[in-house]
């Protein structure tokens, strides 16, 4: 079931934009995706007909708003194969907050001085800094799986590194290398060693079929804005028994059973972790994004993006030869559509600036993965990343712009 990219492109209003006299070529989906009309329409319709605060009103719109919010929770869980979505999905402001929630709530309750947390060299800062902060407070030992010369995780030392580990936190797909990590064996080994596993799904959930049971992980964090949804909302999926045993994270309205001047009683999960007015319209938008992706089919999304990645890797090698290096694994099953480029010694900032003249949106920088940059021996890359709305013409314009940058800085 192939995906009809021409039809899909019509759903994304931003693709009609003209930049520097050229139609926009959006190749920055790893940073944030575009939003299709049905997602924008769902939110607008929510604000125009239904908006009310959730969970506490008996009037009609309050009840409808609650229902739409809770049904988005179910959709967000179903999308990642959660066994019991209504209980296991916590809405957060983004994937970053979801990971911080685990670090602060599960981490403080379960980790002690000297405990090992196993991370990897390819993690995004979102899955590094919370553990560095927690370690400062608790005195943990952070260990790292290394990245090999092809941009894959080196799991040869896994068992040794798991010795003493209480938690393994690893990305399901790298936002720099495009590497799709094989989490199942890591999770199985971690569980055998008595560790709990958190997957950073910020890149995987938008681009691959993801099933938490198949991955065998205990927590999964992801963001709506990378999967055709709005900004301002992310989700944490957690195994119900783990969530039920975790202390609250943020305090406030909606997360309590009772409050007195000297103590309080927290509510059940997931309410326990949702303090204050939640991102209601954003949940509605996320629900619509899930429905959009489900209608296209995540298998079809992956197949389309994979063939586009294959095309790009081939065309870059053919047309730019040794001038251009693409970091990460070669085309294949474990290669997602993120292309981190080096072009001769032209700095990524300058590459991106030249590409902007062609309407091409790529991102220069460390991509919130400074430790990985050091492993790759660069300070930054220029990253082009694809979404279901990209096609081969987009790749062609990218290559045209790179060649021009070569001439300018030659």
């Amino acid at each position, binding site marked *: 079931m192939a995906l009809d990219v021409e039809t899909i492109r019509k759903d994304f209003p931003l693709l009609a934009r003209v930049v520097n006299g050229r139609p926009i070529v959006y190749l920055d989906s790893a940073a944030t995706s575009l939003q299709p009309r049905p997602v924008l329409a769902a939110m607008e319709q929510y604000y125009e007909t239904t908006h009310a605060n959730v969970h506490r009103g*008996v009037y009609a719109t309050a009840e409808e708003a*609650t*229902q739409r919010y809770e049904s988005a929770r179910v*959709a967000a869980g179903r999308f990642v194969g959660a066994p019991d979505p209504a209980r296991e999905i916590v809405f957060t402001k983004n994937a970053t907050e979801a990971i911080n929630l685990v670090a602060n709530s599960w981490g403080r309750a379960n980790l002690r001085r000297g405990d090992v947390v196993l991370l990897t060299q390819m993690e995004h800062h979102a899955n590094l800094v919370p553990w560095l902060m927690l370690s400062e407070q608790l005195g943990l030992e952070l260990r790292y799986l290394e990245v090999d010369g092809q941009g894959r995780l080196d799991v040869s030392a896994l068992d040794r590194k798991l010795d003493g580990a209480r938690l393994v936190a690893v990305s399901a797909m790298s936002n720099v290398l495009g590497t799709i990590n094989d989490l199942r064996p890591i999770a199985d080994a971690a569980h055998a060693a008595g560790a709990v596993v958190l997957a950073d799904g910020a890149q995987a959930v938008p681009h691959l079929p993801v099933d938490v049971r198949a991955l065998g992980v205990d927590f999964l964090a992801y963001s709506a804005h990378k999967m055709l949804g709005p900004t301002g909302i992310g989700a944490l999926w957690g195994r119900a028994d783990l969530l039920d045993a975790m202390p609250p994270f943020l305090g406030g309205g909606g997360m309590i*059973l009772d409050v007195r001047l000297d103590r309080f009683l927290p509510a059940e999960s997931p309410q326990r972790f949702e303090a204050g007015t939640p991102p209601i319209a954003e949940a509605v938008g996320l629900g619509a994004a899930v429905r959009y992706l489900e209608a296209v089919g995540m298998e079809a999304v992956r197949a389309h993006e994979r063939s586009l990645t294959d095309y790009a890797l081939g065309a870059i090698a053919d047309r730019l030869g040794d001038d251009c290096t693409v970091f990460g694994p070669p085309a294949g099953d474990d290669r997602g559509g993120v292309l981190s480029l080096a072009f001769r010694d032209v700095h990524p900032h300058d590459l991106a600036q030249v590409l902007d003249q062609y309407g091409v949106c790529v991102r220069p920088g460390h991509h919130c993965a400074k430790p990985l940059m050091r492993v790759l021996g660069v300070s930054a890359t220029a990253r082009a990343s694809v979404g279901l709305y990209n096609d081969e013409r987009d790749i062609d314009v990218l290559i045209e712009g790179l060649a021009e940058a070569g001439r300018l800085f030659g």
Partner: protein
Amino acid sequence: MPDLEDLYREIILDHYRSPRHRGELESPPAHRVEGFNPLCGDEVVVTMVVDGGTLQDIKFAGTGCSISQSSASLMSSAVKGKSLDDVRQLIRTFKSMMSIHEAALGESGPDEALEEAAPVDVRTIGELAALQGVVKFPVRIKCATLSWNALAQGLDELATAAS
């Protein structure tokens, strides 16, 4: 939109105005359970005496709306003196009548949800059938189930303590 009369049946208003089994049994010997509805602040206290496999006595106290108060009153009337097996069966029946909507809060609207529900034989539950209309007002379900959850929790606690 469902009608207010579906919610406020005469039996409900009657139990609300003249609640049965209101108060607190002395505890101990009675077993005491508190329940909260965090959404609206309602609190219920259920005290119960179980002896020889039978729920010998039960009372409820606390504050709440007409639905939570009448539900507690109807519950107490329905379970007092019954065998624990019968009580548990009644709790299950009542909760399934009430969970119709909660379970289906997923993607479908209330009407769809109602159709899908496993039918509850209302002849087995007597006056409690008056609370059926509550499912059409989803936010009020928590009011109706508050005292039932406290009762169920109490029975669980007693069973654990005995084992």
